[in-house]
């Protein structure tokens, strides 16, 4: 097979991987601070994708533009979800947190089925079928746009945590929960903001992913699993790790499909997960316990 096909696949996988990374970033932020694994993460993303479809149908909004109001909406939804439902479970055993989030996920899937039906839906943008050609390498335009948007959102998130007072306070909560309480930080409020930020991230990622794939209500659990794998591979709670692992998983899916068997491309993802768990259980960029 010519070399340009491998380059094509690698580039395509990397671009998709950046969007995967942003999706997982939301999960990592929530886990890193609140210490709750959001098992409804993929379902929240599909909800955002459906909102993007509605906005495209009603107002003709491109999903890349719609990600701003949808991000804001998801922030509010995440904030309220944490304050009302999840907060009482923070101090409870992990299995009860797990059951709570799975229940939220099931409700979301079934609500989407009821409202939108089971058929795959998508948004057709003008540039949906366009591509850039550089010699023999053909790069899908929507993939480039989605990846650039993912990088921009990730950069904004990193800047927020590094340069703003709220961001620093959230990091303080993540580093030392008791210390944060002692110095008078409003931990409950910060947890809710963090959950909101995670939800906003996944909402934005959903808008970008909508350019690449169709959406169905039943695909949520698959994305939750994918985000979970990326976070484990990158290192639980590591933001950079999530982005890097997203890239690794995206490229491995693409090359695995080319080199092994297209129908077995998710095998490459799970192989990487097993290797990481065996040889670097803290993840690629995670800190040792």
């Amino acid at each position, binding site marked *: 097979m010519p070399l340009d096909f491998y380059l094509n*696949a690698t580039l395509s996988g990397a671009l998709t991987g950046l969007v995967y990374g942003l999706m997982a970033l939301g999960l990592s932020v929530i886990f890193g601070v609140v210490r709750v694994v959001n098992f409804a993460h993929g379902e929240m993303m599909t909800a955002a994708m459906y909102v993007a479809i509605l906005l495209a149908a009603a107002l003709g909004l491109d999903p890349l533009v719609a990600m701003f109001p949808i991000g804001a909406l998801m922030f509010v939804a995440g904030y309220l979800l944490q304050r009302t439902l999840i907060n009482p479970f923070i101090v409870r055993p992990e299995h009860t947190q797990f059951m709570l989030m799975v229940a939220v996920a099931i409700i979301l899937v079934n609500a989407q089925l009821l409202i939108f039906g*089971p058929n795959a839906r998508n948004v057709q943008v003008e540039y949906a079928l366009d*591509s850039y050609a550089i010699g023999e390498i053909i790069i899908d335009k929507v993939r480039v746009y989605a990846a650039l948007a993912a990088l921009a959102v990730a950069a904004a998130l990193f800047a927020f945590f590094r340069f703003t007072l709220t961001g620093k306070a959230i990091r303080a909560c993540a580093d030392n929960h008791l210390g944060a309480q002692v110095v008078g930080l409003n931990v409950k409020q910060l947890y809710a903001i963090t959950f909101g930020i995670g939800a906003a991230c996944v909402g934005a990622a959903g808008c970008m992913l909508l350019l690449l794939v169709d959406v169905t209500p039943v695909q949520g659990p698959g994305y939750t699993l994918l985000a979970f794998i990326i976070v484990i591979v990158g290192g639980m709670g590591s933001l950079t790790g999530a982005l890097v692992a997203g890239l690794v998983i995206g490229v491995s899916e693409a090359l695995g499909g080319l080199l092994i068997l297209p129908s077995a491309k998710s095998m490459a993802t799970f192989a990487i997960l097993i290797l990481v768990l065996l040889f670097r259980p803290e993840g690629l960029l995670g800190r040792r316990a």
Partner: protein
Amino acid sequence: MQNPTTGRMRSRRRILKAAAASAALSGVGFPAIVRGQSALNVGVLLPVSGPQAFIGQSCKRGADIAAEALGALGYKVPLKLMHADTETNVDVARSRAEKLINDGAHVLVGPFDSGAAAAIAQVAEQKGVPFVINIAAAPQITEQGYKYVFRNFPTARDIVGDGLALIGDLFRATNTAPRTAVFMHVTDTFGQAMRKGIGAALPKLDFLPFKVVETISYDLAARDLSVEIAKAKATRADFMLLVSRLNDAILLRREIVKQRWNMMGIVSPGSPGMYEEQYYKTLGPLANYAISNVPWYDPKAALTAVVDKAFTKRFPKDKLMFHALNVGYTFESLLIVADAFRRAQSTDANALTQAIRATDIKTRMMIGGPIKFNAKGQVEGNRSACVQNLNQRPTVVLPAASAEAKPVFPWPHYKSA
């Protein structure tokens, strides 16, 4: 005992007499009531959600119009349809079949999927309930020696044989001779059965000018098929031989355009996807020129007119042509059930099974010979047509006798679509 309203004394003898008279009257004077009480409960299993939801819902329309169309054909038998969603999941199909039987289904119909059909067939055999398959092509389903399983749909071998023969006809009709093909197929039970069938049949068909240079399988639930198309494009094959479902067929077509792959066309030797309404709705002009060699309906058949009328009445905004295969075979499976019930005059499983086995229906909607089951419970003689998407609608282009237009192959460059 004293009746509180009349004040008369009721003796046990008087009550027994009244009961006997009532029983005699219900048997002689009100036979309609007896018939009404013995409606045939038909469990209809279809994938109305999940990856095959659109096709499942399309099939369901065949069941939805059955009462109207059967009435027009003179079948006055009372059928009570009990719908169940297999969710495009084999395990769900099995459990739904069990539940339908527990809830009183006398016969099962469905399920538009070979994997689900195999699972339901096992349940039907265990419970001794007849099962009439509407659409499912894996040959092994009727090779197991089952007593209660019947199929009015060609096996993958028959579909492949017909489909490949029609490809030869297509090349002759368009005076083309592609030398290479890349074969892409889904990995579900149907896709695997088709792969085996094509692998076995192709070497024997020396009149076909092409060789399969690469076989690429993919997951039915795949979110992205860019890698698969990249691999297919790398083969530089002249055309694509495709065994697909609906969503994946749409994803593939989009990806072919994105990757600027200009080949001669896509030909399905017998699979769903490219003639479905959703394919046209989603892809618009890009849906044109795809070819599917599939079991199809006879637009000139008298039964087609009856079904079309019932369909238009029930779904006035829709057109039968976009649901032809799904509605046609689903309706015919209910026709088989109604016909057997009329002859058996019983809901007893064994009587129904015997009646279904003795089916001989000559007036059909679908192309092929009469509906008669062989010893394995399989109808032989269902035939395919070469259906090409032209002007965003399925159009029969071969065989020439039934053709509505001439085939277009190779397809024009997608930018002119």
